């Protein structure tokens, strides 16, 4: 199990470094497995108990603590990590509920490009809930959820034009 985790770490870190640069258009980032201090004060070297640290520095910025990254930068870094895990061990399906909410248009564009590439290369089925026009326009197909009868949800297949209209009504 330790061997497998070490191997997985190296693969995920490799993907993460590459995906971070693609999502940010530069900068650098990497993962580290660091031993954690146990309750007894002893440092536990076992990788199965270690902590996963993320070092990320957007283009032109100094490497800083993750919490100082902006809302949009944190979402993009999280997406890079998520997709890195995905490329290492593709699950049959990936569902993302409004992950593009904090993103500006330039980042939404890079996010969608990456989704498209991963969808094609790994055969994963993506389900993306969104309010962004740009994201809608990049989907292979769209479903609208409406409450024609108040409180009752119905699912309809829509094309981009009616999705636009659906967006503008409530």
């Amino acid at each position, binding site marked *: 199990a330790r061997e497998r985790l070490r191997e997985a770490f190296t693969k995920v870190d490799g993907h993460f470094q590459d995906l971070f640069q693609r999502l940010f258009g530069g900068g650098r980032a990497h993962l580290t497995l660091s031993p954690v201090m146990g309750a007894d004060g002893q440092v536990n070297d076992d990788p199965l108990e270690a902590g996963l640290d993320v070092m990320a520095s957007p283009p032109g910025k100094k490497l800083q603590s993750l919490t100082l990254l902006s809302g949009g930068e944190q979402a993009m870094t999280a997406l890079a990590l998520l997709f890195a895990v995905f490329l290492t061990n593709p699950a049959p399906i990936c569902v993302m509920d409004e992950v593009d909410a904090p993103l500006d248009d330039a980042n939404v564009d890079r996010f969608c490009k990456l989704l498209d590439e991963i969808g094609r290369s790994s055969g994963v089925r993506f*389900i993306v809930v969104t309010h962004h026009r740009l994201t809608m326009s990049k989907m292979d197909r769209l479903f609208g959820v409406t409450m024609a009868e108040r409180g009752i949800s119905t699912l309809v297949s829509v094309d981009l034009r009616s999705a636009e209209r659906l967006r503008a009504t409530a």
Partner: protein
Amino acid sequence: MQFVKLRLSGFKSFVEPTEFAIEPGLTGIVGPNGCGKSNLVEALRWVMGENRVKALRGGEMDDVIFAGTSSRPARNVAEVSLLVENPLHKAPAAYNDMADFDIVRRIEREKGSAYRIGGREVRARDVQLFFQDVGSGAHSPSLVSQGRIGAIIQAKPTERRQILEEAA
């Protein structure tokens, strides 16, 4: 092995039987605030064996059953099924004899949930293990609930390690 269709009935605001096809590539879900998009995502999480009530935004598990509206009475049963296609027989051993099969979860008010895989009654644990074996499931990082994308970064390092275990 692929997940190809989700069927819901009586689950949260989806009181009428609803079918959602899951096809290759990118499928977008759109609609105004409060129309039921996240409820649909939660139906998928629920059929995978989700047993944390808070992850379904309720106070108790019965909160996933249609609670009624100002013009319709509440229901007492909710059911979600996921159709799995297994043409190359790559499913976990116990279910690998079937080319395709349904995973079904059904809940009755005050009586709890019952699960079935391929028509046979199974325990919650069996369903959870099935999804874990294929790299998915209610605890998988590949199901990102609304508002939770930042949580991966804000989590403690030891919690983040669990994401790695998915990849192992």
